[in-house]
């Protein structure tokens, strides 16, 4: 408990509470103020609902309903005012489908579309119906996308992941069948051609059936058979080879890993293909171990078949090899032939011991894809992330899985699943184990906030940050680990503009940080840790929680930390929070900070190195300038050589207010602006208003070159109307695409 002690804060809360007690029931329904614009999601066009598009080509994607409708509008609706009514009708259908799904209706898009159409026709005037029906028919015929429609709820992560897994498996199955069917057909051809050389194939009956009935009186088939049989049998298959081919065919045709193809999978009728989706890791691992012998057999059969087709099988060479073959010889390519295992776990429902098993399964390296769905990030009694729950507040299991090093790890919240579906597919395609940690947003103790909004808030508040660890992306952390899917990834908390109506009924706005506290107050379990206050009770000592958290040491017992909230009536309030919430936000920020470091943002190792290099440079510079002074004294030269100014090129003219001295004092690779030539056109400040700031003359200068990325400096230089921004050299060596940026910066330096 550094800073404010509980003894000090608790009475303060009670005192404020008693003042407000008259309206306490209403005050209990507080939401973060930044939620104000999202109170009714059904009225908004956003990612959800999603359409799980089916396509056995393996290229199917999840599509947003909004995108589907947009594409449809582009296809069928005439441009301009002509298509106004039609466009409106299609948007109405989208709206209705969204409402249906939000009300719990499940089904495929085509079915929901029909329902929405019926509603629209019912609501339309009789006179307009004919044109309306014509429009709807055209739209329906053009609409090619179909599949299950899902909203953002507690089932979303599992359905999304299973769909992605199915998509990948369908692609795999297609390639698998093509290959195995090819082998079977070629092996059968070998057997068939051998048969045509046998005595049986040359018997009069077979010969007769080959010619058909039309000419049977013209031929003497007995004589023909006699002549043919007397020929040489020297190139018949050896019985050993024939047996081998038949055995291989048997194995290939009776495989149970994929459903039946044209030639494969002809097993006995009551034997089902294997299942690969499990709800616990133990079953999945058992199944994998049980099937290992079959997998070895199958790989053996495939290898033999390939040798046989080319007639390269040498028994003296290959027999001992295939006798020795066991599961330890299976290569990654071999394993990639079979479907991967999918395990869907759910925090709170699955057995707690599963956490250990899941880690074990991932560490064992077998191709299992584990989904861990978290419904509750915060603990029961404390707003701090619980230690016991395996989901963990800030990426506990996913963070642990990072240590496995060869596993694909992806964490995100439901709200971002659609946007980040490429990452999900990448994980499914990854040849090794993969862990997907997804927060569903369907926390039972939160009421009045949709899972979509809550899950988005979890990412926004750094409580459940998104990250990806992809071992296939490269050899080092810089290429493997990625946290750029988080909002405003450079800062501790994401900051947004809150616009509200002030006392004088005027529009007012303020930048508000969205912290872990904003997320925690949504949860009814933590009501005792906060108290909303109305405008009349606001005090000068109040300070926003994010400002207090940003202070070093936080050691001010005299201030009252608050966050902005709105109540059920949309009234803005300052909600005072206690130490527990502050401490938990502090811990959350620490976890986020360590993730940032891993992601290469303000990395402490890099910073140390940079400081060392800078100190060295500074020393060198002082040494040089010292030498110059000595030289000057010796030569008694009156003037210091002027800094070289490239004659007409205006870009190189130094800033007049800072003068030549400033130009000399400036490090050679540092970015700078010729402030006196700035035309206040807002290009750079719109790119980053912390890095580029106006001075007292309202002309821009670089206030803090580390407040943003090198990319932003380069983009600002490119968009500057009078080309006065000079980007210098990058300051963060870990920034992606540096080579390209340096090239782009060259003309401005």
């Amino acid at each position, binding site marked *: 408990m550094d800073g404010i002690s509980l003894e000090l804060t608790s009475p303060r809360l009670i005192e404020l509470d008693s003042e407000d007690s008259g309206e306490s029931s209403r005050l209990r329904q507080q939401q973060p103020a930044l939620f104000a614009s999202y109170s009714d999601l059904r009225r908004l066009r956003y990612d959800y609902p999603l359409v799980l598009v089916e396509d056995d080509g393996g290229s199917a994607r999840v599509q947003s309903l909004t995108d589907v409708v947009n594409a449809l509008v582009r296809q069928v609706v005439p441009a301009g005012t002509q298509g106004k009514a039609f466009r409106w009708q299609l948007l109405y259908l989208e709206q209705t489908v969204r409402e249906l799904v939000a009300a719990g209706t499940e089904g495929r898009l085509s079915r929901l579309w029909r329902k929405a159409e019926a509603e629209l026709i019912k609501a339309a005037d009789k006179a307009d119906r004919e044109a309306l029906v014509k429009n709807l028919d055209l739209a329906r015929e053009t609409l090619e996308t179909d599949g299950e429609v899902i909203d953002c709820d507690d089932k979303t992560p599992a359905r999304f992941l299973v769909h992605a897994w199915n998509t990948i498996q369908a692609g795999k199955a297609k390639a698998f069948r093509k290959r195995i069917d090819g082998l079977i057909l070629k092996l059968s051809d070998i057997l068939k051609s051998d048969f045509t050389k046998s005595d049986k194939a040359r018997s009069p009956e077979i010969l007769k059936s080959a010619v058909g009935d039309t000419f049977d009186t013209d031929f003497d088939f007995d004589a023909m058979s006699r002549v043919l049989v007397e020929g040489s049998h020297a190139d018949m298959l050896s019985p050993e080879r024939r047996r081998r081919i038949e055995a291989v065919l048997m194995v290939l045709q009776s495989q149970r890993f994929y459903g039946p193809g044209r030639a494969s999978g002809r097993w006995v009728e009551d034997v089902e293909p294997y299942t690969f989706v499990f709800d616990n890791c133990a079953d999945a691992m058992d199944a994998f171990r049980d099937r290992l012998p079959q997998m070895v057999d199958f790989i053996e059969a495939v290898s033999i078949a390939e040798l046989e087709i080319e007639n390269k099988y040498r028994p003296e060479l290959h027999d001992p090899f295939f006798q020795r073959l066991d599961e330890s010889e299976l290569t990654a390519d071999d394993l990639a032939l079979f479907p991967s295992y999918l395990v869907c776990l759910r925090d709170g429902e699955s057995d707690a011991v599963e956490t250990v098993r899941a880690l074990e399964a991932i560490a064992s390296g077998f191709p299992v894809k584990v989904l861990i769905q978290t419904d509750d990030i915060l603990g029961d009694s404390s707003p701090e992330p619980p230690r016991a729950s395996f989901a963990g507040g800030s990426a506990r299991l996913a963070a642990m899985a990072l240590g496995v090093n060869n596993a694909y790890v992806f964490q995100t919240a439901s709200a971002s699943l659609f946007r980040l579906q490429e990452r999900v597919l990448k994980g499914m395609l990854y040849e090794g184990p993969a862990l997907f940690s997804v927060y569903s947003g369907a926390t039972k103790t939160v009421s009045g906030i949709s899972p979509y909004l809550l899950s988005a808030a979890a990412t926004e508040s750094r409580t459940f940050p998104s990250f990806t660890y992809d071992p296939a992306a490269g050899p080092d952390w810089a290429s493997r680990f990625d946290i750029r899917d988080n909002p405003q990834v450079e800062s501790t908390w994401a900051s947004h503009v809150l616009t509200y109506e002030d006392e004088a009924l*005027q529009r007012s706005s303020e930048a508000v940080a969205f912290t872990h506290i904003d997320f925690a107050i949504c949860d009814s379990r933590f009501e005792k840790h906060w108290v909303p206050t109305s405008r009349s009770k606001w005090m000068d000592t109040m300070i926003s929680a994010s400002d207090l958290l940003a202070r070093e040491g936080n050691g001010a017992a005299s201030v009252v930390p608050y966050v902005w909230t709105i109540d059920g009536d949309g009234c803005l309030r300052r909600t005072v929070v206690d130490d527990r919430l502050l401490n938990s936000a502090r811990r959350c920020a620490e976890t986020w900070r360590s993730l940032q470091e891993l992601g290469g943002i303000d990395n402490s190792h890099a910073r140390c190195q940079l400081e060392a290099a800078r100190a060295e440079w500074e020393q060198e510079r002082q040494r040089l300038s010292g030498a110059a002074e000595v030289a000057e004294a010796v030569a008694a030269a009156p003037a210091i050589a002027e800094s070289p*100014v490239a004659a*007409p090129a*205006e870009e190189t*003219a*130094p*800033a*007049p207010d800072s003068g030549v001295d400033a130009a000399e004092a400036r490090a050679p690779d540092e970015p700078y602006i010729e402030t*006196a*030539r*700035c*035309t*206040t*056109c*807002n*290009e750079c400040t*719109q790119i980053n208003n912390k890095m580029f700031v106006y001075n*007292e*003359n*309202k*002309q821009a200068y670089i206030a803090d070159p580390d407040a943003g990325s090198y990319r932003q400096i380069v983009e600002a230089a490119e*968009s500057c*109307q*009078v*080309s006065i921004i000079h980007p210098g050299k990058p300051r963060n060596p870990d920034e992606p695409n540096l080579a390209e940026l340096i090239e782009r910066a060259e003309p401005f330096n």
Partner: protein
Amino acid sequence: MHAPRTECLLNLIDQEYAIRDYQSDIPPRWCTGCGDNAILTAIQRLCRDEQLPPEKTVFVSGIGCSSRLPHYMNAYGFHGLHGRAFPVAEGIKMRRPDLHVFVTTGDGDCCSIGAAHWIHAIRYNMDMTVLMHDNQIYGLTKMQASPTSPRGLRSNTTPRGAYLEPLNPLTVTLGVPNVSFVAQAADWIPETLFDIVSQAYRHKGFSFVRVLQRCPEFMPHRFDAFVQDPSLTRLLVHQKGLTLTPDTSRTYRNQEIHDPGDLNRAREIASLTEEVPVGILYRNSEVPCYEDLREGERPNTPGLIRTVLDEEFDKFTIWPEDQPDQPAAS
């Protein structure tokens, strides 16, 4: 009367104005990159440096992108009818000569629909500072040719290219009797823009400043040649005109020493086509202002009204013995 004491109190709470005190609550709606921003900044710097009280300053405009400027100043403003900024400004100056009057207008607003008012405003020579934002296009209504659009410009009203040579606002202004101050500035040279605006403000009379203004949206490359090649800009310097900082002087080496009193040379410079003259072309502080010629007998500023009232009240005042016959505050 206790007027002197109140004045003291007022002076006590007088504040030092900073640029932000002249900024209104509305953030500028101009496109990012627009040259109008530079003009706004120059004006705000002027107000700050001259410490103009916002309540004593009026910005009058017509219609157009340029004419949105009064919204962004924390001062009095009058967003008038298209082309009618000058009559409104003249009315204000006539009735309240104590106010600082600024007119912001554009090439369409001033030289097309408002051309008649413009000519007569020059002739009336009332004390006001006029900034004509010349981007050579109608930007607010999305790209129609204006009177200053270059010949051949394809726009929404001239799809085959503009047929006529553009109007030259400098030569027109210099040709009107009673002209007293004409200058040209460019938004991409903020130092001289600020210098010219300051001198225009300090000139008593109708100071006409044409500001060449980039429109990144509809005329994106019109002034590129001038922005990139400083030798195409001819800076007019003189001890009575612009004083350049060493850096500006080093960058813009194409300079001419031009006496702002020389009307004939001013007309020649104004007619240059290959180069852009920047600086003060003409200044004559001897030309009388219309508001002075027609000064009425009625007191028309708060200060005058108070003086007259005080004089009347003083006739009935009984002074304490130790303070006989105090003069009234003015």
